[in-house]
């Protein structure tokens, strides 16, 4: 304020200041002359002054005018032009074509000219850089267009996702496939960038395939790249899709995403099923009829003394059976596929890999040394639907453990002639025939809405048989799945990708696209956060579990704002699982009449607007939020930090990273554990204490924190 006033009246103020100081000097002279003189001398002096008053005043006026003129010139020719030039210099920065107009004194004009010379070279440099950027952009755009053209030309659907299952790239064929699968564009869940692939494909299958690919990455084999194949049906089996999953790896060969190529094989499968059916008819039933004919003919040949009655009987059989055969073949041609055969789900797999997979799945199983994979004759190959097979054995193991109190299972795979025996052994009482039959024919609940998959049907789809045997010697029981061996095909040379990134993906897909880059460069201490937690009906969002409570607090400027919290119970569309009530203590009665999620999510979305989300094991909560994206149209696209992962970053040597363990480690009091709001505020306090520890590790910005979290071992999909 004062500066502004000074600036505006600086001429008058300076002039006044100069005049005042000169006046003070003259006054001082007079005082020196007059001091300690007697009265007569003072009077004389006063008279002298009065007599010369007019010329002295004129002189003083002249002096003031001269000074005013000089001051004016100084300001007008030096100060003002320099101030203007300073402003113009700022303009030069943003507009390199701008030039300073030379005004003012010669020296000032020279300074301006020098600045203009500098500006010219700056402009040249700027134009140069700009040209290079444009060239690079053009090359990038060309590459992108080429990729886009290539992708749209592809007969397959292509989805590129990060490890969380977010779609980073999607071609029109894939979009079309899912639209058709979901009954037209209007009803379809949006297939777009940043959406979750789990809204489109069965989660279990993708997680299974991811595990396969990751296992192959860790156990690389000559000649084949890591690849997993699975088959799934969309829209209740109306569309059948074969998917190939390949990993996207970074320079360190760690996987940070995956590519899914999708083939619509519905027609192919239908044709195959018809073919399979026909073949089945022509083998099974035809064998029966031929047996009847052949036996009759052979009897007539071998026993010429046959009575006339018997002879007529056998001729009757031959006639009847040959007519049946004719009808059979005609029917077979007309036959339409009724259900799925299943052979088309099979992928080629090494016995060792299958065993390793099963051992990972069955936590109470040990490898049976007598029934190792392969044996002396080298690697054993099978045609399997490893997902279904793993499910089947998990199912058996579950029943044995829970109903027959079996503590440990032995699992093995061995070659027996042209077959492989996949064996599950345990000791205990033999199983009754009724138990066996019920276990074989009960639905495995393999995927949502598919209830016809049973142990029998899985084994049948492998062209196999299952045998139960009891060995009284060691009171050992065995389930043996007999499977035909596969001929190992030579690996198809699809051209193993060179290490590092393929050049088509040079634009950085694995940074959350559409996110504010500037935000990610900001330090963690400067961001605003919404720390949240949810309680749910159960642990399986894909199986219909839902949110029943959301709690959240805000962190602004490094402080938790306790007065600004979000705490809301939600009435779910289903009942609580009893085991979940045991955890959070919420009962169905407490939820009655509460608002629905469609009402609550938009409120929470507004509460969390323009903040970074923080949660403990946030992937779990985010999954529940994502499940409701389609229904509510509310999408949480902001960055998410996970204290579970960050804890791994700051304390990589600690084993425990549960919220309790973190609270203990950081000395945070636990209040209201297992209420959404209680857990959210514990998480917030823990998170605040983590920020300085992260900084010690060189993790200062949001980007760095997100990257570090992604790299930790926990950054895999768990739910």
């Amino acid at each position, binding site marked *: 304020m004062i500066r502004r006033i000074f600036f505006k009246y600086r001429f008058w103020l300076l002039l006044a200041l100069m005049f005042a100081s000169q006046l003070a000097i003259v006054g001082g002279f007079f005082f020196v002359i007059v001091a300690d003189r007697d009265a007569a001398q003072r009077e004389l002096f006063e008279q002298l002054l009065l007599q010369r008053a007019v010329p002295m005043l004129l002189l003083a006026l002249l002096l003031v005018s001269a000074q005013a003129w000089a001051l004016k010139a100084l300001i007008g020719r030096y100060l003002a032009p320099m101030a203007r030039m300073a402003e113009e210099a700022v303009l030069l920065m943003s507009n390199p074509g701008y030039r300073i107009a030379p005004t003012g004194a010669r020296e000032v004009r020279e300074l301006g000219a020098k600045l203009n010379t500098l500006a010219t070279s700056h402009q040249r440099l700027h134009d140069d850089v700009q040209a290079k950027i444009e060239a690079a952009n053009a090359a990038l755009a060309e590459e992108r267009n080429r990729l886009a053209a290539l992708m749209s030309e592809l007969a397959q659907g292509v989805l590129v996702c990060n490890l969380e299952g977010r779609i980073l790239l999607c071609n029109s064929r894939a979009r079309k496939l899912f639209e058709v699968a979901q009954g037209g564009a209007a009803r379809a869940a949006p297939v777009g960038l940043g959406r979750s692939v789990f809204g489109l494909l069965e989660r279990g299958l993708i997680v299974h395939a991811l595990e396969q690919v990751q296992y192959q990455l860790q156990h690389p084999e000559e000649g084949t790249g890591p690849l997993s194949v699975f088959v799934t049906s969309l829209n209740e089996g109306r569309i059948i899709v074969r998917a190939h999953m390949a990993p996207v790896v970074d320079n360190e060969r760690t996987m940070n995403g995956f590519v899914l190529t999708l083939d619509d094989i519905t027609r192919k499968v239908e044709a195959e099923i018809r073919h399979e059916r026909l073949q089945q008819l022509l083998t099974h039933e035809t064998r029966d009829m031929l*047996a009847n004919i*052949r036996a009759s003919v052979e*009897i007539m040949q071998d026993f010429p003394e046959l009575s006339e009655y018997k002879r007529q009987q056998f001729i009757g059989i031959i006639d009847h059976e040959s007519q049946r055969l004719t009808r059979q073949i005609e029917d077979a041609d007309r036959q339409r596929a009724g259900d799925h055969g299943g052979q088309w789900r099979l992928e080629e797999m090494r016995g060792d890999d299958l065993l390793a997979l099963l051992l990972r799945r069955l936590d109470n199983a040990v490898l049976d040394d007598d029934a190792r994979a392969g044996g002396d004759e080298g690697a054993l190959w099978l045609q399997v639907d490893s997902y279904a097979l793993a499910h089947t054995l998990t199912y058996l193991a579950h029943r044995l453990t829970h109903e027959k109190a079996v503590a440990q299972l032995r699992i093995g795979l061995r070659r027996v002639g042209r077959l492989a025996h996949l064996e599950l052994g345990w000791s205990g009482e033999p199983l009754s025939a009724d138990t066996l039959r019920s276990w074989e024919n009960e639905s495995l609940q393999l995927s949502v809405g598919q209830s016809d998959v049973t142990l029998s049907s899985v084994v049948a789809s492998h062209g*196999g048989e299952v*045998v139960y045997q009891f060995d009284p010697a060691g009171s050992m029981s065995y389930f043996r799945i007999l*499977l035909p061996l596969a001929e190992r095909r030579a690996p198809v040379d699809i051209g193993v990708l060179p290490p590092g990134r393929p050049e088509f993906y040079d634009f950085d897909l694995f940074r959350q696209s559409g996110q504010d880059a500037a935000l990610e460069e900001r330090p963690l201490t400067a961001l605003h956060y919404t720390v949240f937690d949810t309680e749910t009906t159960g642990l399986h969002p894909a199986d219909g579990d839902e949110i029943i409570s959301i709690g959240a607090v805000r962190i602004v400027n490094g402080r938790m704002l306790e007065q600004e919290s979000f705490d809301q119970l939600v009435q779910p569309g289903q009942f609580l699982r009893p085991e979940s009530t045991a955890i959070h203590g919420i009962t169905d009665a407490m939820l009655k009449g509460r608002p629905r999620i469609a009402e609550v999510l938009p409120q929470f979305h507004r509460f969390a607007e323009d903040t970074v989300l923080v949660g403990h094991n946030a992937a779990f909560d985010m999954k529940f939020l994502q499940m409701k994206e389609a229904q509510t149209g509310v999408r949480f696209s902001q960055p998410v930090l996970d204290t579970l992962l960050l804890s791994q970053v700051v304390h990589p040597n600690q084993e425990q990273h549960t919220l309790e363990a973190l609270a203990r480690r950081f000395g945070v009091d636990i209040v209201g554990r297992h209420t959404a709001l209680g857990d959210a505020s514990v998480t917030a306090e823990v998170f605040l204490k983590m920020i300085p520890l992260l900084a010690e590790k060189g993790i200062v910005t949001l980007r760095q924190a997100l990257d570090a979290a992604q790299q930790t071992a926990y950054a895999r999909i768990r739910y």
Partner: protein
Amino acid sequence: MARKILIVDDEPNIVISLEFLMQQRGYEVALAHDGEQALQRMETFRPDLVLLDVVMPAMDGYEVCRKIRERSDWNPVRILMLSAKARDVDVSKGLALGADAYMTKPFSTRQLMATVGELLAANT
């Protein structure tokens, strides 16, 4: 004393042939048309050999075989499976469940008679 053979099959047309063949060879024959009946005949007829079809409604031949093998007093009984199921896994399963021989349909009657003879000879 004549050896006893139990024929288990739901197809009358093959039963006629099988019955004829076995009687010609001088065996005593009993018939069963399904699994339940087969197990009853096992008790009453006490056969030396069972000609067992696999594909039958309700209880199939595999299960009949398993139930026969569960009874130690029926241990000496020979089981010959006759089946239109002809894959390696089917044959393996039959033998694993305790069948002594497995013949796929259509079969040669001469081969069948030879096998029956061998099984009964081994049993004496």
